[in-house]
């Protein structure tokens, strides 16, 4: 298909494009929405760890000690720390959604503030849980 010079000139001209994901600076609400889904997916598979722990507790001393050892290794602790954060983030994100379900907090800047609060709150709660856990272990 041959194009006339005028058509080619038109195609070359810089024209505005609609905001697309790759050229669009994601607002915090969008990022938190994505993280909400990712943490939900992570928690889904995290239930395997809960099942493992309960089965180990219901099993022999040796099995329980092995599970305790595995959770206590550095890799185990990193996974559990991530699990704690995912749980707290998903919980606070869920509360945010429940607030939105009532029709409140949907104004642009309010929504952004709540989204930042979700992130800050999840980090704070995760640290508090681990500090409390360490204190319980020490006591």
């Amino acid at each position, binding site marked *: 298909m041959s194009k006339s010079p005028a058509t080619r000139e038109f195609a070359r001209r810089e024209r505005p494009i609609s905001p697309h994901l790759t050229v669009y600076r994601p607002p915090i609400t969008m990022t938190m929405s994505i993280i909400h*889904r990712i943490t*939900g*997916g992570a*928690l*889904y598979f995290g*239930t*395997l760890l*809960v*099942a493992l722990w*309960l*089965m180990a*507790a*219901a099993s022999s*001393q040796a099995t*329980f*000690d092995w599970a305790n050892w595995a959770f206590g290794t550095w890799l185990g602790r990193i996974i559990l720390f991530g699990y*704690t954060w995912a*749980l707290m983030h998903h*919980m606070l994100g*869920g*509360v945010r*959604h*429940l607030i939105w*379900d009532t029709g409140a907090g949907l104004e642009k800047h309010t929504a952004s503030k709540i989204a930042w609060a979700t992130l800050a709150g999840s980090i704070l709660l995760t640290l508090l*849980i681990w500090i*409390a*856990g*360490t204190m*319980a*272990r020490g006591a």
Partner: protein
Amino acid sequence: MSGKNTDMRTPLARVRGLGSAREGTGHFWRQRLTAIANIPLILFFVGFLIALNGADHEHVRAALANPFVALVMALVLISGLTHMRIGMQVIIEDYVHGEGMKLALIALNTFFTIAVGVASIFALLKLAFGG
């Protein structure tokens, strides 16, 4: 519903309000209900784990065998697993477009949920009644 009625549904279908998927808002509502229930349940679970951090096997067994703990733990599992099953189904429906693969994954989602639930609750019952 006054005047010219252009709604093709039968009066019964309209009253039930379930739509073509026969689910209506049941899925949405269950997700919210379990979300609300999960808040206190998960906080209990986290608190329980903090209190048990570093405890030996005997101590953990005794704690889980407590009737109150066993009951609440069963609720944590049922509410949490129901919530996650619905959530994963939404994720599958959003991203998997092949009809066969979608159905297979939705079935697998249910199997996974039930497997985790049955294994966990069996362990709880064993601790509670097995002595």
